[in-house]
């Protein structure tokens, strides 16, 4: 389950678009995942052949869970028993070294440059991973519920063999279950499958329930005493609770629950932003005469489908200005600023049923206003009615919120962590403006900046808003 945005901890698999044996290329959309906010299309991070689909339709699993295994192409041609590297479908997080459970809650987004670095070991097959294992061995580990990351390989080059897994299963049978279920990255172990190899025991008062399972059961309204534990000694684990919840509600959550879940997700993220980010705020009034004149002139000649709205010009200007003042374009992570590799402009889009999404327009500074407009329309239509793609929800480097259509004159937004700046755009209104000693009515807009004081100072913020204003005075160059 790839990272689905900073406020998403889990997702429900709605639909598989591939089946075992299908050839796929890196970037192909292979599944649709439902979150509290939207249905999201998930792409493959690898080229190869779908080997197994691990998470079933209707299952809800945390970010980091392996959804499917993919045999990479060279290996796919090899005999089935060969040590074919099985690359997990998922984000870099899913393939890195095991991390504690809490690590999932860190910002799911990371700069593309770093993502590429971490992704590399996965793409270059199992060799780069500390514990390589063939799909058959991984399958065995899954059946025996052995965390393959903990198994010492004795095969060539440290490869994990069947015997290693069997030994680990025997050794692990008497060991108490860990308190929390680790993400088990890179290992094809599904959280919610029954355990044929290890008999399950109905829960009694003496049988353990992991604290995480207890908490999640309480959240989901599941009675743990009625569950069958799949952990050692019948311990009820998170997976058991989630399986019970899935069985109860196999399809998309009802609208009301969904709305509530979305409010909670937004609430968690915004509270975190205000708790952690020392915001500073600036505003500027921008003369829109040149931009509006240029826009009307241009639209007059065009069909409806090609016309621009003022937002397209404002977005283009905010993206170009972010390129000019890179301190505002990127992420605050691990106590330092990591600049974005390009300007991926997050756009706050309100949903008809309430709530909002902030998908990104990639490389917005490079797009002509017409292209940017087309992408904006597509994004809004898909956010409201269809599906967004994973990358759109996780890769914004700076976000814009435009409440001008709602009549608001100025908006001071809350930064979307781990980003470091949020640009607000208000309504374009006619105001008396003094130009050359004369007062006249001109269209103006108030642009605002909420910025993270850890990453930049007011001086940089001021330069940014001045750049936005300057760019809008020369709309033909946007």
């Amino acid at each position, binding site marked *: 389950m790839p990272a689905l945005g900073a406020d998403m901890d889990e997702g429900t698999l709605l639909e598989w678009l591939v089946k075992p044996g299908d050839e796929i290329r890196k970037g192909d959309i292979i599944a649709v995942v439902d979150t509290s906010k939207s249905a999201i299309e998930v792409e493959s991070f690898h080229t190869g052949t779908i080997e197994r689909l691990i998470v079933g339709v209707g299952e809800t699993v945390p970010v980091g869970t392996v959804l499917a295994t993919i045999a990479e192409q060279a290996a796919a041609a090899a005999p089935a028993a060969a040590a074919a590297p099985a690359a997990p479908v998922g984000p870099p997080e899913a393939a890195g070294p095991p991390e504690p459970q809490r690590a999932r809650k860190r910002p799911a987004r990371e700069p593309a440059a770093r993502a590429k670095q971490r992704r590399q070991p996965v793409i270059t097959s199992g060799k780069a991973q500390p514990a390589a294992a063939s799909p058959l061995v991984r399958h065995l580990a899954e059946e025996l519920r052995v965390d393959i990351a903990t198994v010492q390989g004795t095969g060539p080059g440290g490869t994990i063999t069947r015997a290693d897994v069997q030994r680990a299963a025997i050794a692990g049978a008497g060991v108490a279950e860990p308190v929390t279920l680790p993400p088990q990255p890179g290992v094809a172990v599904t959280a919610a499958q029954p355990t044929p190899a290890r008999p399950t025991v109905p829960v009694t008062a003496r049988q353990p329930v992991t604290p995480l399972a207890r908490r999640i059961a309480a959240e989901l309204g599941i009675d743990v005493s009625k569950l069958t534990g799949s952990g050692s000694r019948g311990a009820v684990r998170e997976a058991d609770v989630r399986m019970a919840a899935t069985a109860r509600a196999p399809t998309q959550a009802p609208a009301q629950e969904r709305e509530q879940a979305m409010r909670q997700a937004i609430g968690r993220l915004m509270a975190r932003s205000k708790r952690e980010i020392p915001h500073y705020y600036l505003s500027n009034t921008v003369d829109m005469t040149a931009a509006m004149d240029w826009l*009307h002139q241009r*639209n*007059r000649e065009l*069909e*409806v*489908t090609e*016309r621009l*709205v*003022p*937002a397209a010009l404002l977005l283009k200007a905010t993206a170009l200005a972010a390129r000019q003042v890179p301190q505002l374009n990127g992420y605050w992570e691990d106590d330092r600023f990591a600049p974005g590799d390009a300007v991926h402009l997050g756009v706050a889009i*309100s949903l*008809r*049923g309430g709530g909002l999404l902030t998908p990104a327009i990639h490389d917005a500074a490079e797009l002509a206003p017409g292209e940017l407009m087309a992408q*904006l*329309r597509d994004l*809004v*239509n898909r956010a409201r009615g269809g599906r967004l793609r994973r990358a759109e929800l996780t890769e914004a480097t700076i976000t814009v919120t435009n409440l001008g*259509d*709602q009549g608001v004159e100025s908006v001071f937004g809350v930064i979307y962590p781990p980003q470091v700046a949020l640009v607000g755009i208000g309504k374009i209104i006619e105001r008396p403006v003094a130009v050359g000693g004369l007062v006249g009515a001109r269209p103006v807009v108030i642009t605002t900046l909420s910025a993270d004081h850890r990453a930049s100072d007011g001086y940089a913020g001021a330069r940014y808003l001045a750049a936005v204003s300057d760019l809008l005075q020369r709309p033909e160059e946007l």
Partner: protein
Amino acid sequence: MTPEQARNVIDEAISQIAPDADLGSLAPDADLRDALELDSLDFLNLVESLSQRTGRRIDEDDYPQLATMASAVKFLTAR
């Protein structure tokens, strides 16, 4: 185009953009953007949809005439 036909075309176009809109309770002189919470992109979609359904060009200068249901019906039946 008769007023009834125009009204149907507008209803269809709006339903496409705001499926949850309660068109029955919409006052003829209510501002469509406000009443239906349409933003500028929604409005552009509405214009595009009306243009496709009626086969007529709608310029930016015509937008004010699409402000309310009554004015939009009048606009579509005028020519």
